[in-house]
């Protein structure tokens, strides 16, 4: 499951431009246990990890088996079309954690991510913890937290029939769900709706987030990208 590895940005453009701007609003920290090695008291450890994350302004938190803090609702009534309760539900997320999974927290600010990592180090949960982000940003975080990097996995981007992929704006948004549950066509539709003023960028971002079953979709970055698509074209 490489669900956070291949997030598209200008750095992976098929016709790259020199010196693309760094991605400074997308940092994921996730925890994972290995069966029979460090999975005793697993549920409590994952809940502690999620609670620590919630103290540092995450834009999303997810449990890979149950979803993120934005989830589809199984029984809405028609008033939802005018007055929908689309607030995140972190308590439900924590309550629903029940066993082996991957718990992830997404941050839009490096400082929040770094403060969270320091808390995780202090908590000494014994779980494997990874940062999925620009490699240099993660290295800076390790240095600030007094950690030595153990292992690295680089994304080399996409190759093959890349001409079949949609444009940059759509790709940047849709690849924030690494499992591909956020469809390109749905993103295109929402870009159009945002341009037509039928939905705000924030609303469009929340629709997308409900489809991401791991809860690693970055709603703040998506909102910015929708806004850019509206004003600069996509």
């Amino acid at each position, binding site marked *: 499951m490489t669900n956070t590895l291949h997030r598209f940005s200008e750095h992976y453009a098929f016709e790259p431009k020199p010196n693309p701007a760094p991605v400074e609003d997308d940092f994921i920290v996730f925890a994972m246990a290995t069966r029979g090695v460090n999975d005793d008291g697993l549920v409590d450890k994952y809940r502690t990890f999620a609670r620590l994350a919630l103290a540092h302004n995450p834009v999303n938190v997810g449990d890979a088996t149950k979803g993120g803090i934005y989830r589809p609702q199984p029984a*809405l009534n028609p008033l939802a*079309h005018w007055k929908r309760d689309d607030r995140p539900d972190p308590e439900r997320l924590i309550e629903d954690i029940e066993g082996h999974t991957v718990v992830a927290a997404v941050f839009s600010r490096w400082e929040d991510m770094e403060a969270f990592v320091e808390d995780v180090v202090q908590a000494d949960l014994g779980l494997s913890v990874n940062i999925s982000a620009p490699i240099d940003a993660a290295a800076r975080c390790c240095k600030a937290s007094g950690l030595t990097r153990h292992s690295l996995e680089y994304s080399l981007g996409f190759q093959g029939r890349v001409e079949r992929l949609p444009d940059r704006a759509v790709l940047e948004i849709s690849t924030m769900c690494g499992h591909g*549950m956020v*469809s390109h066509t749905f993103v295109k539709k929402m870009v159009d709706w945002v341009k037509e003023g039928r939905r705000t960028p924030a609303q469009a971002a929340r629709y997308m987030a409900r489809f991401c*079953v791991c809860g690693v979709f970055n709603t703040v970055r998506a909102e910015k990208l929708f806004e850019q698509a509206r004003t600069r074209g996509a």
Partner: protein
Amino acid sequence: MRIDEYKCVACGNCIPVCPVGAIYIDPAIGRARVNQAECVECHACYRGMSKEHLFPPMVRGIRRVAKGLRFRFDPEPDICPTDALTPQALTWPRIVRRAFSDPQVPHESTGIHGRGTAEVKTNDVTGRVKEGEAGFVIEFGRPGLGAWFREIQEMTQALAALGVEFEKKNPVTSLMTDQVRGLIREDILGEKVLSAIVELKTGLEQVPTVLRTIRGVSRRLETVVAVGVSTRCDEQGQDRLRALLEAEGYPAYRGKTNLGLGHATVDVRAAGRRWAGPRPSEASL
């Protein structure tokens, strides 16, 4: 996935949410249909859409009136108003589609959970990729195109010819009939999945050769390929891999960094001894 003809009101909300574009309105029946050849059984439509459970004839009536009046209702775009999406019972080999496409189900077909393994995400406790080694994760079909197993086999054959060792716990490896030649079982070659991952490990010195082979085969495929390469850092937290990747012309901008915080919290050897024999339920079989 199927769509219940009685329940469907042809609102069209499910059409754009399908990651592979397999849903369409069939004008002959005025309802949505799923192209079964293209559907990868990912359940994104079924699981991702919220539901209202409204009475279908009532919704159809209201829609007819609104259409007659040229009235544009602006509904929430992620709701199936009548809960018309209906998962179907899957049999072999179609069940493989769901195993590789729906991230929330274990690989019932392969007995392995997830599309791949933990890669280096748990390397701090498993020691799977060692210093001087490189782990490859080669993903097919993502984002949003999907891939056929016959395309994946083209890559596994080319990589097998290099003498690489495929990761034994990987689901694609478990579906191979001949790992030395990189052959995948024939009865699934015509199955399409949203994504599948091939995993292997080599020495760092083989990284350029493997990357060139992947690049060469990728050009012949109908889908996209996303590649991840991992390594173990040295005692100072440095790695030799980045320079190798950049020399091959690949961006090494983003990735996963294992912080080394994992540690065994149970006596693994003792746990192994405890579970060496059959479990009570297995012993009674």
